[in-house]
């Protein structure tokens, strides 16, 4: 097990107005190397959950535990978390290469070493030709790939993605889904992927969590019963539709309550 959430609750308390409960007590265990999709309606609190796991937000109650806590220092643990936002959020004044070296620079690595790791990572996402270009000169899909490379360059043990491909067109999105799955199989990190698309969750994940409307609780914790080897043709497979249907039903019931 890589991660354990016990009774994690979050209540927003605005300076004016009533307190807003966002997460009901959430208990969750995520196995090492698992690919977990988190589904839920817009604004249900799935991003909040991800931000709490990333350490960007603190739970109002409850704890988050790490398996490796005793064996490695906290700083080491933090460095092996990576986060991909809804939009690419690159630094516009840095070239593609220097955007990807950034996390290594912040960790205090040498420039030459950082650049060689960054080049190798950019190759993994198919951007070796674009290293000297600037974000403003790239398409949305390419920018997202840079963002993915920036996350992968630290060799994260936990990769958190918050609806990363939601703004892209269908074809680009499927390409990036394929690529992400390949990278996950190759690198073996734990992935938590927030999305509102049942198809994307079904295609990508080994396990899917469906959250209810705010305040979020877990409606369904479902192991996706599809082969590990997944390719584009799987999307037309009836088994795929059946799995996506299960998630869809859970989403509907969670919205109805």
């Amino acid at each position, binding site marked *: 097990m890589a991660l354990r959430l016990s009774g994690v609750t979050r209540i927003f308390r605005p300076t004016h107005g009533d307190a807003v409960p966002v997460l009901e007590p959430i208990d969750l265990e995520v196995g090492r190397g698992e690919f977990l999709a988190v589904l839920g309606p817009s604004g249900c609190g799935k991003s909040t959950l991800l*931000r709490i796991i*990333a*350490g*960007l937000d603190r739970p109002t109650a409850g704890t988050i535990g790490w398996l490796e806590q005793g064996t490695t220092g906290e*700083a080491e643990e*933090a*460095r092996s*978390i*990576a*986060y991909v*936002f809804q*939009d690419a*959020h690159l*630094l*516009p*004044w840095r070239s593609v290469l220097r955007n990807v070296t*950034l*996390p290594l*620079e*912040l*960790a205090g690595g040498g420039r030459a070493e950082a650049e060689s790791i960054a080049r190798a990572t950019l190759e993994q996402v198919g951007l070796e030709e674009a290293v000297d270009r*600037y*974000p*403003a*000169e790239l398409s949305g899909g390419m920018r997202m790939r840079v963002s993915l490379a920036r996350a992968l360059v*630290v060799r994260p043990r936990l990769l958190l993605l918050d609806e990363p491909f939601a703004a892209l067109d269908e074809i680009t999105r499927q390409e990036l889904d394929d690529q992400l799955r390949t990278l996950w199989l190759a690198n073996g990190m734990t992935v938590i992927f927030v999305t509102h698309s049942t198809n994307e969750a079904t295609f990508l994940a080994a396990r899917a969590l469906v959250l209810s409307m705010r305040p979020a609780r877990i409606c369904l914790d479902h192991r996706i019963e599809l082969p590990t080897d997944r390719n584009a043709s799987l999307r037309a497979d009836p088994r795929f539709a059946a799995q996506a249907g299960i998630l869809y039903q859970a989403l509907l019931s969670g919205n109805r309550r």
Partner: protein
Amino acid sequence: MSAGWAVRWLPPVGSLVVLTGLAEVAIRVGRVSPLLLPPPSAVLAVAVSESPALLSASSGTAIAVLVGLGLSAVVGVTIAVGLSTSRFIERAFYPYAIFFQVVPIVAIAPLLVIWFGYGIRAVIASAFIVSIFPVIANTLAGLLSVDPALRDLFRIYRAGPVDTLFRLRLPAALPDVLTGLRVASGLAVIGAIVGEFVGGGGLGVVILGAMREQRTDLVFAAVGYASLLGLALFGLASLASHLSLRRWHASEKELG
């Protein structure tokens, strides 16, 4: 390219020729006393005949302006970084920054002479005081409006305050710093000339001397040189902005 240049330069140059031509005719036909308003041709003649003196005066003013502006850039950005560290510090000290904006420079210029003596130091101080506020205000706005997701990114990678300042906040604020400097460049010329009125030197003294001799044409010629100086500085600041931002910032991308 030649067509592009014509489209770009014909309107401003054309309007200049037409307007000065009209002024020339109106002044000559209306028999306005050259003591009140000399015709543009007379001003141009003085600007050429007195050009050695005017150029050397301009270079004196230019040095004071450049030093004052440089100080504004360094001190202004430093102050903005200090103010941006916390809301408390901003609330406590920003009013003093506004003081630089509202202070009537003409009123305190004599004070600068008392503090710094006659000469270029008082002139530099005057240029500095009037040009620092736009640098502080714009830089502060830029530092405070950094993309929150990028702040989160730096937090996830455990970046310290120094790394965050130099790798995120200052580069993100650069377009605003340059906008501030562009505004400041015009103000610095005003500040320097007011400083020269009381502290001596440069175009300010030429203007005062011409006024005492009732040489209105020379006053206009000196004003023309001062305007050109301001224009050149504005152009320099715009060029710096274009060169440093052209690959990433929306404000420079359309210019191409």
